């Protein structure tokens, strides 16, 4: 029915099957829309957030997807600025994932901010000392860059590309893509850092506070490193999931292994500094304010196992797995390492968001538990459904994977 719209030389599932899939995703999305409507109409009181946990599941989700979406800017940087040609086989997917992650984060922020109609105040009354101002600037600007990077791919759609103007326009955008990749890398590096800086500057929160370099606390640099250490491998995981769902080979393993090698190298650098940072915080800063490392943990929910899982099981282990060629070159182990790394970065964002504010700084105060309720889950899952919808449509109609025809339909290669 819609086969004329498919990318050149590819096959896709039947229209009915596709509609069934989209119907399922649409239903999940609508469930989230219902939750979002309640939040916007009745108020954020609808959620599990409270005066102790002003930040919760939404902020954790935002930080996690932004870190995982870092594959877009980092791969763009390597492909267009450092000219690593091999990455062109996966670059389109990184842009789509980046777009989904950032657009999703913005949608969640619309819900999370108490007065969404005042969101533009970040531009109108900016506080240049606030890390969040920088985040607002860079996230909005970078989303625009991602849209600019996404547009040529849409314009390359088989039927659209037949129109001479669109063809020429898409070509010109491609020619100048290095410029946008550069701007994107700059913006994204800074706001990945500012998201970390947001916690590092909290002088009243010993769990998160860090010294730093000039105006940037160490968390600024750690967040950048952890994002570039996991973003590329997340792209590999998404590509692999797409391969499992579609039953086709979409990216050659050599490219996947290269992405994993890049991520592994960055993850190793990150782990090196993360361990030093944690050590300095535990033995230097905490005692200086009368606290011990043990004070930072409580019960099972806020236990040390969280930090251990983050740094060791989901940090050091995948870093080693991804840098050692004999492990990295085995698909099963590469994917396992990738999953661990992605869990690790998400755990890091959760710990910095929730445990930071759960720790009772006043000695007579008590640890509080935070339970996100279904509204927060539904709206977050809505974003995941949104991502699936965008990726499904892109896969079906846009030439996302340059190697798809070669890997699936041409014999002898």
């Amino acid at each position, binding site marked *: 029915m819609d086969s004329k719209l498919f990318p050149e030389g590819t096959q896709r599932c039947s229209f009915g099957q596709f509609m069934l899939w989209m119907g399922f995703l649409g239903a999940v999305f609508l469930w989230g829309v219902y939750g979002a409507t309640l939040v916007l109409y009745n*108020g954020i009181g609808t959620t599990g957030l409270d005066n102790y946990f002003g930040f919760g599941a939404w902020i954790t989700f935002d930080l996690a997807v932004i870190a995982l979406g870092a594959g877009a800017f980092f791969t763009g940087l390597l492909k267009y600025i450092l000219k690593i040609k091999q990455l062109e086989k996966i670059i389109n997917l990184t842009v789509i994932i980046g777009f989904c992650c950032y657009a999703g984060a913005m949608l969640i922020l619309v819900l999370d901010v108490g*007065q969404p109609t005042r969101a533009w105040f970040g531009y109108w*009354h900016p506080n240049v000392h606030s890390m969040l101002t920088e985040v607002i600037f860079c996230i909005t600007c970078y989303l625009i860059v991602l849209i600019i990077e996404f547009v040529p791919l849409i314009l390359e759609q088989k039927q659209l590309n037949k129109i001479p103007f669109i063809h020429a326009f898409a070509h010109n955008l491609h020619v100048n893509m290095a410029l946008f990749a550069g701007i994107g890398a700059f913006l994204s590096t800074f706001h990945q850092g500012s998201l970390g800086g947001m916690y590092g500057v909290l002088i009243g929160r010993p769990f998160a506070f860090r010294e730093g370099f000039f105006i940037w606390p160490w968390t600024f640099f750690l967040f950048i490193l952890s994002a570039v250490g996991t973003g590329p491998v997340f792209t590999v995981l998404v590509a692999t999931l797409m391969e499992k769902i579609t039953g086709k080979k979409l990216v050659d393993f050599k490219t996947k292994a290269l992405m994993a090698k890049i991520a592994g190298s960055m993850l190793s650098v990150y782990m090196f500094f993360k361990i030093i940072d944690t050590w300095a915080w535990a033995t230097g800063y905490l005692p200086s304010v009368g606290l011990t490392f043990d004070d930072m943990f409580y019960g099972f929910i806020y236990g040390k196992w969280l930090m251990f899982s983050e740094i060791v099981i989901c940090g050091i282990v995948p870093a080693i797995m991804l840098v050692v060629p004999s492990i990295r070159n085995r698909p099963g182990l590469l994917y396992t390492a990738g999953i661990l790394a992605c869990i690790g970065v998400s755990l890091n964002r959760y710990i910095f968001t929730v445990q930071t504010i759960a720790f009772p700084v006043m*000695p007579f105060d008590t640890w509080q538990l935070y339970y996100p309720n279904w509204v927060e889950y539904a709206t977050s899952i809505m974003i995941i459904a949104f991502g699936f919808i965008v990726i499904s449509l892109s896969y079906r109609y846009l030439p996302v994977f340059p190697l798809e025809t070669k890997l699936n339909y041409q014999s002898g290669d």
Partner: protein
Amino acid sequence: MQMKEFKVKWGMVIDVDKCTGCGACMVGCQVENNIAPMTKKDPYNYVQALTWDRDDASNKLKTLTWLYVYELSNGKSFPEHETAYLPRPCMQCGNPACVPVCPVVATEKNEEGGIVSQVTPRCIGCRYCMAACPYHARYFNWWDPIWPEGMDKGLSPSTAVRPRGVVEKCSFCHSRYLDAKDQARQDGNDPMDLPDGAYNTACADICPTKAITFGDLNNPEHKVHELAKGKNAYRLIEKLGLDPQVYYTSEREWVRKLGDNYNADGGAHGAPSNSHG
């Protein structure tokens, strides 16, 4: 962040030993500052009526309590068990954690008097300031504020009510400060040199045991000036270096020790000395 010095520095000294935990200060604060009570039903919101109820005042993690009274315990069992009550307003920190983080300059410390402002019409409700404040002195309007019929007649005309979705906090009853300065001008006096008691907060006014003393910490003619220098005076979590303008005093050592963390012994992190001014 650089600390800003003020000629006038409004502050409080709260005598924890005098506080009985009656909660009158919380009520006084609520009334003075038009803080909405929590109501389960919202008669103006039909969507709400179709779904489920809002939080009522029993959910203490969603109520608005600019001034909150904490119960302290010495942790011992009877007969050595002792309790104390500690009212906690906004500390109006000299080096506030909340001010530099606000992305839209909705909270500032720049007015003579050293009160940390909250510009609610500009607040976008991101709650970053709440995450920053270790005293939990900041509150978010989780629901639309509703005053049950009749209660709205008792609203103070001096204080603006706040909409849903913004953060608010204790302002040391700022409208009273404006009134006191106006009065001084009318009387031909210097509004920057108010006599002790000319400007007082609602909580200090209403406290039946006079546990809360309010005044200019920099003015030797104000009682707080001396009280804050008392040998039993302390401030909450001073080691973090936030330089609060609210002081506490207690003759009981265990109460004073609960004012900061002493689990590890180290030099204070960038904290100013115990004395002010």
